[in-house]
C-alpha cells in the first residue's frame, strides 16, 4: 500500500476503503497465529518483527514525512524504558502508568532538543541527533545513582518478578506480549494514516519537498515538525517501555544505543519512508535476516547483521529508491485499476 497517492481511494463492494480492508484482514490473520502455532521461538520472532515494525513506524511518523534522518531516536526509547522500570521498582506503580509518564517525558525532551536541531539540515541534523543521544547514553552508562535514584550504570536494571499479572505487565507466556505489541503497531499505523491525511501531514510533506516553498504557502515549519517530533518521541518511548518489560531488563546499550536508532531508520528507508506500511515491510525483511545473522553467525562475527543491513540498503537504494513498498503499491494499483475497468 503506497499511501503517497491519496486520490480516489479504491473501495470494496461493501464501500470500505480497500487499503483499510486489507490492513484489517492482515492484522486479523496475524492475530490468529498464536492460536494456531505453539512454538515459543516463532512467537518470540514474531514479537521482535512487530516490535521493530512499531519502532520504525514511530521513527517514520516524523523522519519519514519530514525527510530528516534522525539517528538519536533510541534516546526516547531509553527514556521510556527507564522511567517505566524505575516507577515500578521505586514507587510500585504499574509499568502501564510508567509507560505513559516515560512517553510524556520523552515528548518534552524531544521538544527541548528539537527546537535547536531542526534548524539544521542534512548531515548536520543527523550528527546532532547522534550527539544528543550519545550524551544521554554515556551519562546513564556512567551513573550509578542520580539524586538517590539507582540507575546502575552499564550494568542496567532488572525488573523484579511479580508473577503473571496484567497490572505488572508480566506474563509467563509470550502470547500476551504478542497481542500487546500487535495492538501497539495497529495504533501507530492508524495514527500515521490519520496524520498523513491531516493538515499536519500535508505540512510535513511540504517541508520535506521544499522548506521555502512550504513557507510561501503559509506553513510555519517549526510548530509542525515539533508536534510530529513530540508524538514520534512519545510513541518511541512506549516501544522502549514494552522492550524493557518484555525482557524484564534494561541497560543503556540495548535500549538507547546507536544500533537501535540505525535499525529504526534503515528498516523504514528499506520499506519505504513517508508511507504507512513501509516500516512494517522493512521490519518484515530485515528482522528475520538480523535474527538469523545474530543466531547463526553472530558468535563468530559480531555486527555481521549490520553488514547485511548495508548490503540490503544498497540494493534497495539502487533498485527501489522509494522503498520496497513502491513496487507493491504499483501492483496493487494495477489490480484495483483492472478491477475498476471490469464491466
Amino acid at each position, binding site marked *: 500500500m503506497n499511501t503517497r497517492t491519496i*486520490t480516489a481511494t479504491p473501495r470494496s463492494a461493501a464501500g470500505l476503503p480497500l487499503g483499510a480492508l486489507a490492513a484489517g484482514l492482515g492484522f486479523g490473520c496475524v492475530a490468529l497465529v498464536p492460536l494456531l502455532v505453539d512454538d515459543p521461538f516463532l512467537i518470540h520472532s514474531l514479537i521482535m518483527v512487530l516490535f521493530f515494525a512499531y519502532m520504525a513506524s514511530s521513527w517514520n511518523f516524523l523522519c519519514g514525512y519530514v525527510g530528516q534522518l534522525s539517528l538519536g531516536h533510541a534516546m526516547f526509547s531509553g527514556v521510556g524504558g527507564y522511567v517505566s522500570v524505575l516507577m515500578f521498582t521505586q514507587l510500585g506503580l504499574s509499568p502501564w502508568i510508567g509507560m505513559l509518564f516515560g512517553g510524556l517525558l520523552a515528548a518534552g525532551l524531544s521538544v527541548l532538543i528539537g527546537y535547536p536541531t531542526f534548524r539544521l539540515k542534512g548531515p548536520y541534523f543527523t550528527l546532532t541527533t547522534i550527539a544528543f543521544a550519545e550524551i544521554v547514553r554515556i551519562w546513564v552508562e556512567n551513573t550509578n545513582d542520580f539524586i538517590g535514584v539507582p540507575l546502575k550504570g552499564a550494568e542496567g536494571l532488572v525488573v523484579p518478578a511479580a508473577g503473571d499479572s496484567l497490572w505488572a505487565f508480566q506474563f509467563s507466556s509470550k502470547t500476551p506480549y504478542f497481542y500487546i505489541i500487535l495492538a501497539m503497531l495497529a495504533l501507530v499505523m492508524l495514527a500515521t494514516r490519520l496524520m498523513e491525511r491531516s493538515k499536519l501531514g500535508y505540512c510535513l*510533506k511540504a517541508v520535506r519537498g521544499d522548506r521555502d516553498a512550504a513557507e*510561501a504557502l*503559509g506553513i510555519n515549519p517549526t510548530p509542525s515538525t515539533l508536534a510530529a517530533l513530540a508524538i514520534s518521541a512519545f510513541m518511541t518511548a512506549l516501544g522502549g517501555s514494552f522492550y524493557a518489560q518484555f525482557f524484564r531488563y534494561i541497560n543503556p546499550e540495548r535500549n538507547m544505543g546507536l544500533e537501535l536508532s540505525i535499525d529504526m531508520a534503515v528498516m523504514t528507508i528499506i520499506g519505504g519512508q513517508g508511507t504507512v506500511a513501509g516500516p512494517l515491510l522493512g521490519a518484515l525483511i530485515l528482522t528475520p535476516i538480523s535474527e538469523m545473522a545474530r543466531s547463526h553467525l553472530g558468535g563468530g562475527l559480531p555486527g555481521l547483521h549490520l553488514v547485511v543491513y548495508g548490503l540490503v540498503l544498497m540494493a534497495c537504494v539502487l533498485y527501489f529508491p*522509494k522503498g520496497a513498498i513502491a513496487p507493491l503499491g504499483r501492483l496493487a494499483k494495477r489490480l484495483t485499476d483492472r478491477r475498476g475497468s471490469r464491466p
Partner: protein
Amino acid sequence: MTTTILDVQGISKRFGGVQAVKDLSFSVGKGEILGLLGPNGAGKTTAFNMIAGYLRPDTGKVLFEGKDIAGKRPWDVCKAGIARTFQLSKPFGDLNVIENLMVGGFCRTGDRARIRERAEWMADFLGMGRQREAEANNLTAFDRRKLELGRALCTEPRLLLMDEVVAGATPSEAGEMVELVRRIRDMGISVLIVEHVMKVIMSLSDRVVVLDYGELIADGEPQRVVAEPRVLKAYFGERYVQSRA
C-alpha cells in the same frame, strides 16, 4: 481612481558592502498588473523577497491593505493575503498534482473536502485536469510552473507575486501563461510580476516600474517607460542611447 493594495515605502537592503535595494518606493493598485523590470543584479528579486517576507528590509515600510508587513515571516505574509511563485519552480516532487494544490488550501481552512474540491477546480483552471494524479516530478518544466502558480492561488491571495514565470518557456507556453495571468487578474487578484521577457511584460502589465542598481529609475505605462533614456541606458548602455540621440 484605483485603490492601493500594496504600498512600498522607502525600503532598502544592504548585503555587506553591496547596496542591493536603496530607498525603493512604489505601489500596486487593486486589480492591477504591475511589472517590475530591471537588468540582472538590479535588485528585483531582493525587493520581491522583502515583500514576501524572505528578507527583512533594513529601512522602510511595506504596507499591504494599510498594514505594515515589513519584517513579517513568509507564512504570516501568506496568511495576510500575499502569495508568491519562485524563479526556479519548487514543486513538492513526490506528491501528485492534486496533493500539491491541496497544500496551499490548508492556509485558509482545515476542511479537507473543501480544500480538495478547490484543488480539483484549480487543476482544471490550469488546464492540468488530466494530470491530476501525476507526480510533480514527472511533469514538464512548464507544467511545474503552472502547478506552482496554482498552488499559490489555492492560498486564496489578494496579491500574487510572480518571479519570472515564463523563463525557459516556448512562445506558445508563454502565450498560455499570459492568458492565465489575465484570467487571474479577472478573478480580482492583483499581480506584481518580475519578468525579463519584454514581449510578456508589454502585453501583460498595466504599469511598469524599473530598477537599476537597486534604485527606482522609472514608473509608468509600459510603452512610455521603455522609451525613456534612463531605462534604455540601464539595459543597453550609454553608447546605445547616444547613438539614438
